[in-house]
């Protein structure tokens, strides 16, 4: 699981590549820590190459969302595939996140 974090003009872009399953979630949560610290900025979670997410991955998404709410930042989830959209629907995440298509 690859997580590419880049920052440009106060927008943090996090590109997730591969499967975000329980096995890798701890490692990914660690990589996201610096993003949480900067949650007053706009955070784009780029899911174009994210193929799969489990509940442990959803926890990470929710943690980012909560940190942004606390610090006055903004979270945009970009380009989720149909399967992940289904999971977002099931869990009510569609109402919690701003979802964009690029």
């Amino acid at each position, binding site marked *: 699981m690859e997580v590419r974090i880049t920052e440009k003009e106060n927008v943090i872009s996090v590109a997730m590549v591969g*499967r975000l*399953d*329980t*096995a890798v979630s701890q490692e990914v949560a660690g990589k996201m820590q610096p993003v949480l610290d900067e949650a007053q900025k706009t955070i784009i979670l780029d899911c174009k190459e994210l193929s*799969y997410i*489990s*509940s*442990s991955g*959803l*926890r990470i998404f*929710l*943690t980012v*969302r*909560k940190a942004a*709410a606390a610090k006055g930042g903004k979270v945009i989830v970009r380009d989720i595939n*149909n*399967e992940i959209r*289904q*999971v977002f629907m*099931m*869990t*009510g995440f569609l*109402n*919690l996140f701003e979802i964009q298509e690029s």
Partner: protein
Amino acid sequence: MAKKDSFNIAAALQGMMIIIVALLTVEASSLIQYFYSQRIIKEEAERRAQGQLDATELNINSIVDQVETAVRNNLWSASIQVTNPDSLWNLVRGIVKDNPVIYGSSIALMENYSKTEGRMFAPYAHREGNDIVFGQLGTEEYDYLSKEWFVKPLETGGGYWSEPYYDEGGGDMLMTTYSIPVKDRKGRTAAVLTADVSLDWLNSLLEGVQVYPNSFNMLVSRTGKIMLAPAETLVMQKTVQELAAQQDDSSTFNSINKAMLSGERGSVSFKYKGKVNYMFFNQVARTGWSMSIVIPHDEIYGSVNKMGKTVLLTQIIGILMLILVLWASLFRQKKMQEVTVSKNRIEDELKVARGIQMSMLPKILPPYPETSDVDMSAIIVPAKEVGGDLYDFFVRNEKMFFCIGDVSGKGVPASLVMAVTRSLFRTLAAHEISPQRIVTTMNESMSATNESNMFVTLFCGVLDLQSGHLRYCNAGHNAPYLVKADGPVQLSVEPNLPLAVLENTPYSEQEMDLTTGEGLFLYTDGLNEAEDSSLVQFGEKRLEKALNSILSASDQVKVMTDAVKIFVGGAPQSDDLTILYIKYMNNVDVETAERHLILHNDIQQIPQLADFIESVADLAHLDVGTTMSINLALEEAVSNVIMYAYPEGSDGLVDIEAIIRKDMLRFIISDNGIAFDPTAAPDADVNLDLEDRPIGGLGIFLVKNIMDTVSYQRSDGKNILTMTKKLS
């Protein structure tokens, strides 16, 4: 006076006879039970051991994969950089740094390849604690040009896993090396690129998990060198062959050795220090290593012996009670000095006993999901005098096992034989799927101990609930009716002898296919031979007239019993009347496949679960979306077990069984961890605002949402979670 005494003696003798017959039949059936339990337990041991071996192979392969991929990923850079030896230090450093599983890496140049670096040059990087340290391998003392890891890949022209060895420099560590030749841009063989892997993880992998408390694991290299064994002294010091020479059973050892090294998979039993052991083995194809699990005989069969004792104890208590009842009856008889009264008393008591037996016969099927495939109903209408009718049915592995039977004669002995027949059927059908073999074994047991010359007619069937395929064996019973839409027909039955008539009688099996809506109407002669007051029999014509495929099973049984009741009027019946009606209701023509996976309680094994689901999805022809959601549900359920079922730091297993049908997928996840019912957790509220949303709690919610049914069961110290997804 003399007459009365002689009756008492006769009654006592009769009592003794009953006890002897009961004893013999009970013992015979428990012997059979013991034999079958042993076989089942051996199969279970084999299944567990091979499952363990498969899981270990998956683990080893995943490490092997990582190493091979890491080396191959650097092959291109190596071929570019090999002409510039100084740049190679950075290359080997990168390989070690980026791959925690690799202990050391080197790129060893061919003899005199470099003009600047001399005859041998092999930059080497390896771990020491958190640091990476460097060294050059090719020296006067260490001539790598003749080493196995260097020579073999050049011979084969491809990747090669070395024989395991003890690392000479870096302390006592068991290592193996993967090496692959490197060609430069001109296409000349320039060097060998290597990765050293410590085998410490193998120790923990194989030692951590034991199928049984005293079982142990062994890993043997391609040449028979022992890489891992319970006795530290054997490791790397000996080959299996040398070990064999020291044993009291060296020929067996040698044949194990041969089988293991030839790459076979299987099992063998051998004697070691006077005790019988079973060894299950399997080869890791990628490296040529052979793994085995050795389980002591006593460990496998311990539970059977314990079970045998319990069964024996219950039987002894039962027989003691029987003696007590008979003795009490005789005593009372003597006291009352009224022969007929006491005889009726015994009959009355045994009628009560038989009532208890009858109440043990199944009335309705337990609510398994499979049972929607079948609609059934059964009844016994007892006659005035005690008789010996019986029926039984149950579902095992999506097959319904059933029988109906009639013991010749009436009274006390018939009811005893009936009880024994029924328990024999239960015991045998629990392990056997062929009705012919069930009936044959029942006959062997019953005719061997048949002191009373009674016999039993029996129809025994096994109905596959998915396909409607019926296998049956008829031991002299009335032919059942097949109730089709266009009317009833008698099922063709071969004229086999009833049970308990003759030892070594061959029984033949027949088969047919039931289509949905068709019923099988089984009965005893109490039905067709029911008589009205002028001794006219109910007969087959009236019976056939009362059969109709439109009726549900319970309605059909009621229609039939009402018809008989009206026919006989108030005439007392001399024989039991038994009906068993089975209506096949499944219209899905499905095939079943099963897949099985065993994982350790290590969250890093989740990718293996994903591979497993992928293969199951292939079999079931699932689309991408369904595959992903099934994968998600399974990951949630399995990671829950991995993380919470076993105490932290302890090793445990998760067993995942997949049953694949056209119309549904079922997964059965079981573990030996602490009792926990995940389905009992309250559902997550997905409509809450962000502030109120808890971070966790979505796992089991997803499982319940994705699957159609999720049920939890705790049995035999196991958590068993069964989940089903309907497929359209």
